[in-house]
């Protein structure tokens, strides 16, 4: 099944500069698994939304889900 991954400009360095990816997955896959397999390191992930809603990393994806990954909040 097909899902879509959106990567903000500050994380695209981990996805070969791609910001919109169409990904084919088979079986149950979590949002976090897809983000990690796209190349974004775990320590750089702030949180993930699916179809605009913040989800836990173990959220199991459905057909045509739109995943967006956000960077961690940085500072002192």
């Amino acid at each position, binding site marked *: 099944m097909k899902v879509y991954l959106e990567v*903000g*400009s*500050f994380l695209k*360095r981990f996805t070969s500069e791609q910001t919109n990816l169409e990904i084919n997955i088979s079986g149950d896959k979590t949002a976090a698994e897809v983000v990690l397999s796209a190349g974004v*390191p775990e*320590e*750089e992930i*702030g*949180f993930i*939304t699916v179809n605009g809603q*913040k989800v836990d990393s173990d959220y199991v994806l459905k057909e045509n889900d739109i995943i*967006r990954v*956000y*960077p*961690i*909040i*940085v*500072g*002192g």
Partner: protein
Amino acid sequence: MIYEKYIRVLYLDLTTKKIRIEHRKDLYSYLGGVGVASKLLEENLKPELDPMDPQQPVIFAIGAASTIFPVVTKTVAMFWSPLTGELGESYAGGRMAMTLFLAGYDAIVITGSSSKPTYITISRNNVEFKDARAFWGLSCDEVGRVVREREPGGGKRSIIRIGPAGENLVSYACVCVDTYRHFGRLGLGAVLGSKKLKAISIVGDRDLPIKNFKDYFKVYQEIYNKVTDTSIMSKYHDAGTPVNIEPLNAAGGLPTKNLRQNVFEHGDKISGETFAHKNLVRKMACTGCPVGCIHIGQFRREFDKGHEYEAVSVSYDYELLFALGSFLGIKSSDEVLQLIEVVEKLGLDAMSTGVVLGWATEALAKNLITLEQTLVPLAFGNTQAYITAIEYIAYKKNEFYSILAQGAEKASEIYGGKEFAMTFGKNEMPGYHTGYGSVIGPTVGARHSHLCNGGYSIDQSMKEFDKEKLVEKLFKEEKERCMLNSLIICLFARKVYDRETILAALNSIDYNLTNEDLDAIGERIYKTKLRIKKMMGYDGKNVRFPKRLFETPSMSGQLDEKVAYELLDMYNKKVEEMMAKEDA
């Protein structure tokens, strides 16, 4: 002082113009930085006098590893804050730490007050008090330029100075340091203003050979490689902290329009990405830092109608984009930069200024104050009105602005609206509405800053909210940062400087410390700060939370006021237990 078992302190008295240097062996156990500065503040403070009495001290100190290792770039200033009425502690980068180190001073204690505007020049073998009457009234950048032209030492010199806001004793006036760096928070600018001290120029030109170079260089290289070859620090160079706008806005943690909202509908117009595309022109670094996280943005301004344009450059980071952006409903990156330029010139703390104006905007809308008082129609998104209002604050244009110049807490005491005066311990809030950590952290933090214990960061990393765990983490981090700030590392690099790295670094330059020693140093410093706060009249049980924190949902959902007070109580008990051990 490196390789010496003492702290070299320069004492300057502005009233008598007397100068002395002491080698303080007794301060060695405080390592440096905030440890030494706390102890010097404690012993020089006059608790019976007003915070801005001429006799009150201002302390500057560099750390035990300042400029010797990468990203150890900060100087600490400690004083009695005119804003909160208690502990003043602020940090700045730039060249100051390097120049103090190479001039041969670990700390400076300034007391007294000059009868006329003065600036001080400091070098390794000379200190002079000079006439600054011609500088009085100049903006931060103008006085910086004049001192640069008059004083020698370019390249090995640091110049710190105040603007009109400091001269006029605005409680949240800042001190500008070199180019684009500041002792921003808690009103050091006003304290220097009260001493008629317009600027300090420091030249550091000693050559300091490193002993055991092989051991030192091995550690240096390991740290340098960690800083430059891993992603720990690259995010600070690439996007910098402005990256925060996007995730905070998406998750509902971006304080917007005086925290009436947690999401800014125009967040994308002031995001780090937008600034990078539209305004970013270069990046700079503090001396001794290979990262270069200072982002410089540019906007165009017409000299006058029908005339040419000038390009104006200012530095920006997340806290400024929050305070002078989303918090005031400013809808474009150019306008945010315009507001930053005004606070920069006048010498104000950008964060407090934005948050104070957020209160004033809402107070005007609620008819607690009138247009006759504000003189300009303060409204979210009205940049021109805010520019004028910022000038009115700096010059205390009328009675209303004189009160606004004392902070949001004071203004709300007089005009009402305490429930939406967004302060923690009387210090205006930082740009995180992420959960209980972002509320309790700065409230219990020694200087009421998000940087005391990184509560906002704990909110982000805690998988499930747990009261005990949150309080324990805040308490532990507060002590740890006391130790880190005795070095003084830039806190952006705190993941680089883990315990193992700190011990390797310090022990390669002749310290002989253990992990337990670092624990003890952190606690010793924290206790010193708490004693100072008590001398200044602070009681952790008397702090309040603005109601707005519990009305507007946070990134972690709706917060409960009762839970917040419970957490505060739990933290206060931990502090009491620690201090009771000391008394016993």
